[in-house]
């Protein structure tokens, strides 16, 4: 199975080579791997419907990561959608895309890559494997919706689809991890065999549902799906009707046998699904773009599927699996019909189309067949699925059963109404609208796939026994109470009445279309507006946070760092540390006058306004610290300190020759100085306090130091322990230190030489001084406007 998936992806990578010669050929080649996958799946039907076919490839065994695949009844149904319908749509694409279409090369490769990812998704038997393919399909969708990214609508729709589905995907990943940890395994089949309970499992399930709802465009995440209709029609037919948007439904179907008895699982699924079915159906009645009508219809149908597959009932699961198949077989041809009409007439606005029934009779008949299946007319597959759905909830009875049953009835009326609206909009001869001109008649490549899918819906409706055989092993995961089987005729019963009511009500709604159309535009809440304000809000929040944190002022940054230092380690030291009881005032009397010199020099430093005075005071501090080193018994340190201090003073004097005598800084007012003073004073006290507390907390001598002293004479051949440490025991430190010196020397010389170079060039060319841009007043004017 992995080989099949990889074959899709590899061939997708090679497809541009074919496209370079002939674009139609590229689509023809792209149709091959899905066909092979479908044939392979059919060849495995026996074992798949029995125990399932499994395959496992160790990925990172040490981490327990495996690529596990499993072909069972549900996966087989999904493969018919993914590979079967996929191949049909790729054949349709041969005729749809023009020979010189710039979109064709990209679309062919991406559609094939998507088919591979989707195949992997439905075959995955491991939560993490599933997640990887899940996100791959999101990315393929983003690229296919965005196309060249040349039109604003395409870019926005692509970003919206990506943001919404990836947000859900990440939530789902978190849910998967929680679920996998609770179950002790990531194998889906093992989790379902012994579903975990309690603990974080409810949280995990809600997170997983979030992923499923975003992917399958459920309320309130649905607007991305209609927006994604800017993509070429074959893409919409494949990704946004037949397969990708079913991923969420598939995930719910996959996990329901293990979790549907929990209210945290079935309640959101049923409520959100029903809501989506009604809202989607209602919105479809107000759209004028045929593709949008179908898109909202898809949203509605996805809600329907959610309810059926998440309810946790055998009959409902049977109905759901059958509807899964039926939906792909009627929605894909309807989309392809729109594509064909668009291709033939140049418009898909139902207000402009008229008289196509006579102009494109073949397409009209095939589309009518598909739409009839969508509306639930016998003897089509859609009717069989819908009958089973009504049966499931009417039979269940109780509050939940009847509420859902009537909800489904209302949703089915809307479905019938927008099916009629679609057919009327696409093919009817409308009074007052001149007959649409057909520029070029659709060829067999365009209409053939429509016929194939539509007829399949009819044939499977007749051969319902086959469908029953196919989906029964999936439904068998639930207890069998009534022995219900899919069939065309169950006798005169309530589900049949519901079916009749749905179709009758739908036709009435369609007859009153003027009123409905007007009403459907009045909506108190708009999910698209919600998405927009969420994105705007996040971006505004980012702006505010960045504007606050990234103030662009060095003193502010340093102040924040210092305040953090004071608040975190400072407070921790006060709270947890213990002030030493017997702190001496001094250890050696000489420390006091030296310390006094250093302190006075340091305080004077803050008051000095002349650069030279400041440098001299720094020198006093340095020499004073050197003196303290001598008292502490560190002659090497003192020597280094005196040498370095002297060298620093020389360097300072060299630079000070060129700088003005006074600091150029504006004299700060007390108000601006006060926070600085406060932060600095508290910061200094904090450092000293932490030092005292920590030094008092020491309980014994440093072990390492004792070893250094013991080993110095023999190990390093040195009597001075400090030099032994520096050149021998910790020689690597010293090498690093020398490296730092080299780098600093290189930096200093390049900075000085650059100045010298500028001066020479200025002298030679007589031009103005070079300006570095940043910080210059001109630059500031330019940036701030």
């Amino acid at each position, binding site marked *: 199975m992995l080989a099949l998936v990889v074959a899709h992806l590899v061939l997708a990578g090679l497809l541009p080579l074919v496209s370079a010669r002939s674009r139609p050929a590229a689509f023809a080649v792209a149709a091959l791997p899905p066909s092979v996958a479908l044939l392979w799946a059919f060849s495995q039907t026996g074992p798949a419907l029995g125990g399932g076919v499994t395959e496992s490839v160790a990925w990172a065994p040490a981490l327990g990561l495996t690529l596990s695949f499993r072909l069972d009844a549900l996966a087989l149904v999904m493969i018919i959608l993914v590979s079967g319908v996929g191949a049909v749509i790729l054949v349709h694409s041969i005729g749809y895309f023009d020979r010189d279409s710039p979109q064709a090369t990209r679309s062919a490769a991406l559609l094939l890559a998507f088919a591979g990812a989707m195949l992997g998704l439905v075959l995955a038997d491991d939560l993490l494997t599933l997640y990887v393919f899940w996100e791959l399909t999101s990315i393929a969708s983003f690229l296919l919706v965005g196309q060249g990214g040349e039109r*604003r*609508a395409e870019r926005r729709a692509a970003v919206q689809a990506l943001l919404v589905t990836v947000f859900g995907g990440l939530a789902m990943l978190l849910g998967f991890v929680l679920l996998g940890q609770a179950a002790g395994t990531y194998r889906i089949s093992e989790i379902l065999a012994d579903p975990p309970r309690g603990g974080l499992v409810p949280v995990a399930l809600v997170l997983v549902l979030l992923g499923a709802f975003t992917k399958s465009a459920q309320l309130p995440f649905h607007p991305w799906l209609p*927006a994604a209709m800017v993509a070429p029609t074959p893409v919409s037919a494949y990704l946004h009707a037949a397969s990708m948007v079913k991923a969420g439904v598939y995930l719910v179907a996959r996990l329901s046998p293990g979790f549907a008895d929990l209210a945290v699982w079935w309640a959101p699924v049923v409520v959100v699904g029903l809501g989506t079915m009604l809202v989607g159906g209602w919105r479809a009645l107000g759209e004028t773009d045929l593709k949008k009508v179908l898109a909202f219809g898809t949203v509605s149908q996805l809600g329907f599927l959610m309810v059926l597959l998440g309810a946790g009932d055998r009959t409902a699961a049977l109905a759901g699996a059958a509807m899964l198949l039926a939906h792909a077989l009627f929605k894909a041809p309807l989309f392809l019909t729109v594509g064909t009409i668009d291709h033939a007439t140049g418009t898909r606005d139902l207000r402009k189309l008229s008289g196509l029934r006579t102009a494109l009779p073949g397409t009209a008949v095939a589309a009518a067949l598909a739409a009839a299946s969508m509306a639930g007319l016998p003897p089509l597959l859609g009717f069989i699925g819908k009958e089973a759905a009504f049966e499931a909830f009417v039979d269940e009875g109780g509050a939940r059963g009847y509420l859902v049953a009537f909800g489904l009835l209302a949703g089915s009326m809307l479905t019938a109404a927008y099916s009629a609206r679609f057919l009327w909009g696409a093919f009817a001869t409308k009074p007052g609208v001149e007959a649409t001109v057909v520029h070029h008649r659709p060829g067999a490549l365009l209409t053939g796939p429509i016929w194939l899918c539509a007829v399949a819906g009819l044939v499977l409706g007749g051969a319902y026994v086959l469908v029953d055989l196919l989906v029964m092993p999936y439904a068998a995961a639930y207890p069998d109470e009534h022995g219900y089987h899919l069939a065309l005729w169950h006798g005169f019963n309530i589900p049949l009445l519901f079916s009749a009511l749905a179709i009758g009500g739908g036709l009435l709604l369609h007859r009153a279309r003027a009123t409905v159309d007007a009403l459907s535009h009045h909506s108190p809440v708009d999910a698209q507006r919600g998405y*927009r304000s969420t*994105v705007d809000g996040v971006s505004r929040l980012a*702006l505010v946070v960045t504007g606050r944190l990234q*103030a*662009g002022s060095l*003193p502010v940054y340093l*102040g924040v760092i*210092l305040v953090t230092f004071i608040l975190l380690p400072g407070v921790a030291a006060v709270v947890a540390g213990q002030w030493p009881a017997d*702190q001496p*005032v001094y250890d050696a009397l000489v*420390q006091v006058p030296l*310390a006094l010199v*250093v302190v006075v020099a*340091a*305080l004077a430093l*803050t008051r000095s306004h002349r*650069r030279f005075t400041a440098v001299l005071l720094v020198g006093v*501090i340095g020499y004073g*610290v050197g003196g303290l080193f001598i008292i502490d*018994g*560190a*002659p090497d*340190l003192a020597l*280094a300190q005196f040498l*370095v201090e002297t060298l*620093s003073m020389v360097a300072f004097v060299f630079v000070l020759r*060129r*700088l003005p005598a006074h*600091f*150029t800084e504006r004299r*700060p007012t007390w108000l601006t100085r006060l926070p*600085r003073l406060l*932060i*600095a004073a508290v910061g*200094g*006290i904090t*450092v*000293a*306090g932490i030092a*005292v507390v920590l030094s008092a907390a020491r309980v014994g001598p440093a072990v*390492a*130091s004792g070893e250094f002293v013991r080993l110095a004479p023999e190990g390093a051949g040195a009597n*001075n*322990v*400090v030099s032994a440490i520096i050149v021998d025991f910790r020689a690597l430190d010293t090498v690093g*230190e020398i490296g730092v*010196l080299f780098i*600093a020397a290189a*930096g200093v010389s390049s900075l*000085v030489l650059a*100045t010298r170079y500028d001066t020479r060039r200025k002298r030679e060319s007589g031009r103005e*001084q*070079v*300006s570095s841009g940043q910080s210059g007043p001109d630059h*500031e004017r330019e*940036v*701030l406007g």
Partner: protein
Amino acid sequence: MIIVPTINLTMAVTVAVLYAVGFYLLLSRSLMRVLIGVVVLGHASNLLLQLAGGPPARPPIVGTDPAAMADPLPQALALTAIVITFALTTFLLALGYRSFVLVGHDEVQDDVEDRRIGRQKADPVGLGSDEGDGDDSDDSDDSADSGAGDRVASTDDAVEATATGERERP
């Protein structure tokens, strides 16, 4: 080696003052003052490193009684730190000098790009609003009122025009 290494009060005050002065200078806008602040902080840190080793004692030379000997390890670390402080000082000095030569003063300026972000009110990405599908009427730069947000919008338009191959309308 002596086991009571508590830093005495005089030294603690010295360290506190040195750090406070260093922080104070670091927070100022003059590059030279910042540099001097770094130097003072360097002195303070070196002193603190040495003090962490314990109270005054005999130099760590072999032959001294190990019990009366100062801890050699902090000394070695402080020695390394002193040299590195020196390297840092000279580099900052050269940097300040170069900045003075180029800009004519040695003040640390605010980053104007950052200030512009702070002032910006408009949606910087433009993902949220999708009015005007396809055409760019929603944020054309005809309304040339000053403001940072407009700059971004007009840049976006320029990109748009290049991408679609459309020339901007006059």
